[in-house]
């Protein structure tokens, strides 16, 4: 049997999960830790599609990226903004509550294609997949710096920032890294957008690869800066999704060369030069 799977190794399945922690970690931003066998199947930059209980009038699952998939402890960590009815219900799930998630979904980040340092740029709730990317790089001993932007100080997710700072490098490599914070209103770190900080970083150091996740307009700016310096840039896109695994074609992403890719199965990670941001 030939199964063309967009080159992903594990086909999506339905997995149970049980909430072990679900709490507010910044203004309007929650972290859920849950036990699920899926944690052993996920790669950084992939996502899961969560069935949030208690509202049968909404029939779509909620696609969420994760900040950590800990196979050893069977634990998955999701960080999400409460923005609508669905994520509000998600935030109301209690320790011990169970439901299901579909996954692994999507392609995930690719390792850098050339040697050299990586620059990670996150905006808002683009942070979780960037955190997962940082883990991937640290495990491979690839040096990186990080820029994290938020609207205002209270929207910065302290526990994730702490982890970003402390993340140990594998294989005895140098773990020195810069973490630059920005806020739109200047209440913490540099005032302004992440691209301003990125310009400074690019002036000081050279990078081989850039990874970015955040609002579309932010990623457009990041991609342009990276392109101007011939830095390979991967972006992780967000779309409203029907299925999450390539069945319904609802989450189209416009391609530079014309036509559409699907965010869920061709992405969510794309080479920034191939998609219209």
């Amino acid at each position, binding site marked *: *049997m*030939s199964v063309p799977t967009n080159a992903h190794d594990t086909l*999506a399945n339905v997995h149970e999960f049980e909430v072990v922690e679900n709490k507010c970690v910044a203004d309007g931003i929650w972290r859920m830790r849950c036990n699920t066998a899926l944690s052993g199947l996920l790669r950084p930059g992939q996502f899961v599609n969560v069935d949030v209980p208690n509202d049968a009038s*909404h*029939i779509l699952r909620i696609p969420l990226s994760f900040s950590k998939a800990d196979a050893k402890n069977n634990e998955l960590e999701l960080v999400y903004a409460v923005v609508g009815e669905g994520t509000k219900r998600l935030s109301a799930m209690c320790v011990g509550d169970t439901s299901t998630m579909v996954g692994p979904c999507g392609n995930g980040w690719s390792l850098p294609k050339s040697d050299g340092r990586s620059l990670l740029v996150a905006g808002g709730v683009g942070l979780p997949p960037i955190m997962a990317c940082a883990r991937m790089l640290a495990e491979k001993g690839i040096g990186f710096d990080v820029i994290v932007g938020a609207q205002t100080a209270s929207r910065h997710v302290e526990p994730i920032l702490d982890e970003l700072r402390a993340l140990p490098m594998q294989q005895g490599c140098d773990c020195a890294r810069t973490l630059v914070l920005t806020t739109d209103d200047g209440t913490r770190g540099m005032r302004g957008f992440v691209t301003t900080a990125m310009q400074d970083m690019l002036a000081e150091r050279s990078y081989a690869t850039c990874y970015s996740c955040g609002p579309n307009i932010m990623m457009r700016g990041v991609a342009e800066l990276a392109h101007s310096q011939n830095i390979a840039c991967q972006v992780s896109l967000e779309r*409203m999704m029907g299925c999450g*695994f390539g069945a319904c074609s609802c989450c189209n992403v416009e391609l530079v060369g014309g036509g*559409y890719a699907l965010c869920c199965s061709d992405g969510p990670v794309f080479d920034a030069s191939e998609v219209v941001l």
Partner: protein
Amino acid sequence: MSKVKMAVDLGGIQMRNPVNTASGTFGNGVQFEGFYDVGKTLGAITCKGVSAEPWDGNPAPRLAELRGAAIMNSVGLQNPGVHGFVKRYGEYLESVRSRGCAVICQVAGHSVEEYERAMDLFEEFAPFASGFEINISCPNIAEGGAAMGATPQSAARVMSAVRTRTKRPIVVKMAPHDVAAIGHALEESGADALALINTIPGMSIDVRTRKSRLARATAGVSGPAIHAIAVRMVWECAQAVNIPICGIGGVTTAEDAAEMILAGATAVSVGTANLTDPLSAKHIVEGLEEWVASQGATDVNDLIGAFEC
């Protein structure tokens, strides 16, 4: 497993059980192989609509969620054309067929000529197809689609044209509109079976921006919200035709599928439920067999149209 006979004949398409999938909600089957063995489980799968040449489909956003257990989509039949489709999925679909599951290829077009051209290409390059579904009811494309199926006359014109291109069974996917008259016209012009209903055109406006929540003004509503409407249309159509019907519309549970069968459907397609719970179709296969047994029947065919009114 049990002694209940579940096999049905959808106008010449032999199905091991009545459960089919609605085009556009099931990819081309392979996306569900991680959830269950598609080829060994279902009666049939209906592939995404494919046209002679590749189509890009509609711009984003193509999807909105509605409050009433429903979604709206406006994909607009994005597809790689018959050649691209066969190249990418032919081998897989061959394997589905070999596992005992019928493969129905859906044919799309903007005009009678385009339907003919796609049909010719399918006939030549898709030996794995058990039969074809002619989509004359897509609400999401500017020309053709639903317009082709809007009247008995226009529907019959498409059907008569494709009928001459293949001897394999042809199912026609109908719009939620005037189903008795159009169904009758399709039967007269050579359809082997009918599939209904396609999504119901709806509209969802963002009241802050005053714009559609999707890229196009209207889009197709699907999900549990339309189930009762779909059952009624299947029933109306079944009174008007002698060819078998595949019932579609909000089928989420085995009971929903059983309603379709009682209303007159020979087969039932699972659509939006594949998104909510990718295991739905498998659960419906299992539950439907239990229901047939619970009715004291030994053959699901004895329950087709068995609604008592």
